């Protein structure tokens, strides 16, 4: 076939196997960044229009416009453009840039409230349509038990995707470019016929319906592309088409779905193959290649979903998590760095720093040194990228996985994830001390047990036993709650297009999460090594503690407490695995809080580590701010000990350091940041967000947002524009540990 001219053949010619295509055809690049080019006049012109729109959006309180008359789907809107005639990569979510769509499939009430928050009312059409339609949210609450509702209300199970769409599923958008939709449709039809031969169990029937729902949306995607004048029924014929075809797949997915994270996968080295072919026959030059990637990234920066203020509390800064995974190593030992990995990083200079796409470098200590240095330079200059340990993830996920959201790895097109928010384990400890009662409201949530006495120092062994009992009880409730949620999500808000770009029976992961990790570790350490005495209120609830004496604190590379932290993750994971997950999913666990560490802290009483009632938690697996006495690397070493085997959904760590503490000048800082990353990841640590900035800059930006309009910082597995954070989140970010020069 002429679209595949010049490509080396392999298994990818016999069945859908994008990985095989990449490994046979990509060109590893070990050189430096000197080949990169700046913007074209056209890019500047389109970028200028985008900047105007972003300013307008900001002026209008964060939402530029909402189409309240139609329900978002693939074919709902006429084609939209940033600048018609100048856009290279075509396609917007609605007919106008930054105009948001209404997507009530996950929860109708949420959609109504989101519109109202920005001064809009949902139109009559949508109202009528959803009068007789069951949403995901309705389905979940039909099935929820009283206990599930209580745990949710108390905030011990929290951030659950029961009123918003789950997200975290990555379609293999590359398949569209490589194979064309006709082939993919024929393959799925064949899958359906094959499955139709089985006995008609619940599972088989569900799978058959899934196939048909997918096929409907695959056909719609072809129509959507045709409306932009493109024929994606056939494979892409050149680099431009490869980018465009792939983007159409992503675009269809975000028109259909408004899940919490809509990641784009691992596309750079795939696209590089097409770019290299065009460079070789001189139908493209480096300026043109960079322009293609710049234009794609500009589109990614415009993706928007309509959210409620409560949602923004959990996931601040209007993130979409267009997570774009770069680099890594192939299983055969070659680097997967290509020139197009550099081109994606270069967009942060050409288009300026930005939170989206969420550029994620899959780090290996064996990556080419010039690439490491360029990444470090980009981090120092823009604070916009994050790092995840390819040497650790490759063992479990091979060399064609991508990151969804912040830290969730999955094999592209082969695995999907049921996102499960998180369980507040600091609160579970307080519940254990209060005999199953919530420490703020006094409500009996878990089965009644012994309440620990006031005025009498806590005995570590007794507390640990009680904690184990309640954590085990909570783990079972958590899995069962997730099973209800995802059963209903599949039924009422199924990701038809994204799942059509997976194998027909992908492996499923159910991703659980922990919040309050460092608070719990330090609290148990305080009970073990210091003297902690509970204080009760008039209702017999433990509401505070007197903590006397020193105790080891997580974040100082001190095994006495770090071993407690490791144990927490291992114990909770084992307990989760005891309850089977929906659709045979494999249990995974993350230590990641997004920005919800602030909200979770608000909903949690005083803890034995000395944290006061309502104070924020540290984000993710970070040590609590101000408790690390031995500096940055000691803090990294503590986090590095948490074992990835029981936290395969990721262990998030955010690291902020001042330029002066990192090195003497720019060249020195680049070298030292590379050493930090190599040293951290060599210990099998999983993830690091890097910010190189001064606290004062953030304070200045908080006081006058116009000073640094594009100030981007990494928060917890993603980046945000600092000005989009609410004041209490800005204050919490400022309060975090900045490793400074002593």
């Amino acid at each position, binding site marked *: 076939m002429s679209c595949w001219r010049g490509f080396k053949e392999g298994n990818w010619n016999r069945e859908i196997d994008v990985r095989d295509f990449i490994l046979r055809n990509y060109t590893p690049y070990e050189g430096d960044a000197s080949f990169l080019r700046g913007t074209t006049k056209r890019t500047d012109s389109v970028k200028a229009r985008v900047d105007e729109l972003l300013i307008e959006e900001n002026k209008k309180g964060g939402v530029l416009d909402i189409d309240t008359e139609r329900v978002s789907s693939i074919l709902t809107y006429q084609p939209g453009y940033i600048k018609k005639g100048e856009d290279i990569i075509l396609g917007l979510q609605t007919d106008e840039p930054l105009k948001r769509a209404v997507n009530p499939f996950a929860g109708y009430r949420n959609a109504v409230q989101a519109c109202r928050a920005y001064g809009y009312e949902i139109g009559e059409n949508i109202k009528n349509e959803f009068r007789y339609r069951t949403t995901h949210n309705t389905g979940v609450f039909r099935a929820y038990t009283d206990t599930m509702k209580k745990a949710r209300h108390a905030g011990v199970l929290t951030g659950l995707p029961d009123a918003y769409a789950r997200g975290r599923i990555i379609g293999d958008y590359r398949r569209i470019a490589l194979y064309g939709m006709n082939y993919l449709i024929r393959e799925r039809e064949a899958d359906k016929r094959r499955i139709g031969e089985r006995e008609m169990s619940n599972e088989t029937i569900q799978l058959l319906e899934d196939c048909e729902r997918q096929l409907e949306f695959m056909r719609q995607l072809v129509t959507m592309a045709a409306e932009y004048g493109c024929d994606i029924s056939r494979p892409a014929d050149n680099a431009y088409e490869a980018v465009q075809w792939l983007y159409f797949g992503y675009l269809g997915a975000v028109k259909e779905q408004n899940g919490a994270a809509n990641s784009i996968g691992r596309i750079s080295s795939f696209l590089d193959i097409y770019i290299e072919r065009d460079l070789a026959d001189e139908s493209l030059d480096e300026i043109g290649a960079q322009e293609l990637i710049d234009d794609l990234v500009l589109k990614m920066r415009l993706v928007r979903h309509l959210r409620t203020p409560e949602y923004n509390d959990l996931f601040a800064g209007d993130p979409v998590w267009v997570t774009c995974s770069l680099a890594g190593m192939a299983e055969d030992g070659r680097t997967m760095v290509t020139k197009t990995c550099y081109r994606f990083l270069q967009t942060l200079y050409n288009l300026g720093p930005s939170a989206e796409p969420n550029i994620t470098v899959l780090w290996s200590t064996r990556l080419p040194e010039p690439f490491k240095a360029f990444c470090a330079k980009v981090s120092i200059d823009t604070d916009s990228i994050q790092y995840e340990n390819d040497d650790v993830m490759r063992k479990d996920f091979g060399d064609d996985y991508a990151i969804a959201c912040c830290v969730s790895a999955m094999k592209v097109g082969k695995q999907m994830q049921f996102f499960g928010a998180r369980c507040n384990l600091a609160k579970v400890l307080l519940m254990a001390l209060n005999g199953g009662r919530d420490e703020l409201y006094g409500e009996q949530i878990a089965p009644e047990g012994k309440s620990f006495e006031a005025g009498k120092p806590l005995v570590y062994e007794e507390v640990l036993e009680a904690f184990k009992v309640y954590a085990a009880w909570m783990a079972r409730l958590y899995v069962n709650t997730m099973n209800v949620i995802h059963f209903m999500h599949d039924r009422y808000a199924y990701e038809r297009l994204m799942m059509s770009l997976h194998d027909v029976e992908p492996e499923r992961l159910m991703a659980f999460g922990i919040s309050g990790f460092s608070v719990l570790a330090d609290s148990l350490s305080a009970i073990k090594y210091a003297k902690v005495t509970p204080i009760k209120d008039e209702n017999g609830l433990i509401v505070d503690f007197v903590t006397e004496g020193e105790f080891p604190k997580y974040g100082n590379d001190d095994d006495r407490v770090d071993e407690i932290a490791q144990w927490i993750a291992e114990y909770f994971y084992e307990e989760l695995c005891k309850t089977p997950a929906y659709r045979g999913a494999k249990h995974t666990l993350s230590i990641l809080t997004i920005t919800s560490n602030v909200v979770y802290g608000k909903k949690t009483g005083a803890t034995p580590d000395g944290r006061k009632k309502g104070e924020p938690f540290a984000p993710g697996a970070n040590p609590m701010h101000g408790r690390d006495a031995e500096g940055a690397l000691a803090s990294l*070493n503590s986090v590095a000990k948490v074992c990835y085997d029981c936290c395969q959904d990721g262990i998030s760590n955010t690291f902020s350091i001042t330029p002066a503490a990192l090195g003497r000048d720019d060249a020195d800082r680049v070298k030292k940041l590379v050493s930090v990353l190599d040293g951290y990841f060599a210990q099998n640590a999983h993830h690091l967000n890097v910010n190189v900035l001064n606290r004062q800059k953030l304070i200045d930006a908080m006081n006058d947002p116009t000073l640094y309009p594009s100030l981007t910082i990494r928060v917890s597995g993603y980046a945000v524009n600092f000005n989009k954070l609410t004041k209490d989140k800005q204050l919490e970010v400022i309060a975090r540990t900045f490793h400074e020069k002593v």
Partner: protein
Amino acid sequence: MKGYVHSFESLAAVDGDGLRYGVFLAGCPLRCVYCHNPDTWTVGAGQSFEASELVKKIARYRSYFGERGGVTFSGGEPLLQAEWLCEVAELLRNEGIGYVLDTSGGVPLTEAVRTLLAGAQGILLDLKFPDEESYRRYTGRGISETLAMLDYLESIGKETRIRIVVVPGINDSEDALERYLVHLRGKNCVSEVELLGFHTMGFHKYEALGIENRLSGTAALDPAKKDRLQAFVNAQLNK
């Protein structure tokens, strides 16, 4: 034998090449007016460590060191505990971890001190003041030991970075710095002369410790002025 450590800084990136693990030893023979760590002065205070315990702690950071990094012994005055530090250095050599010494030079050149200097990856030598009179006035001791150490470093060809703290009103002029440079011109071991601007971030420690702060009325050095003086020093030394 046990040594006394005041504190640790696991990322002491600017105290030497590569990533450095900073060990601040307790005890100092000098009482520099501009000292920002008066809490490290007392000899025999702080946490005590066997050499092997300390090396075990340092080795936890091996993965960050690469070829140029390692540990930096600072203080206080690390060479006050030279005997113990020799034990540590021996164990570090077995581990393949290098060290830098951050010293004022204000100790006698004993055999242990010579061994330590010779075995270091490099030396950070603080030249506190340029002549006997000012050295004694502002540090409480004489300059001869520091100059003797510099001569020794030159004789063994050990790479040495000289550091000079520039304090407004005391030595923040080209004339004042010229008096330091007379000791440094023609010394092949001196790879660099780095000026450090006086800052006030250690003031709270004086208050907390109830020690008189003789520079309490002095402001931090203007960074632009420091840059100008640094350019002057570099030009004078052709660096």
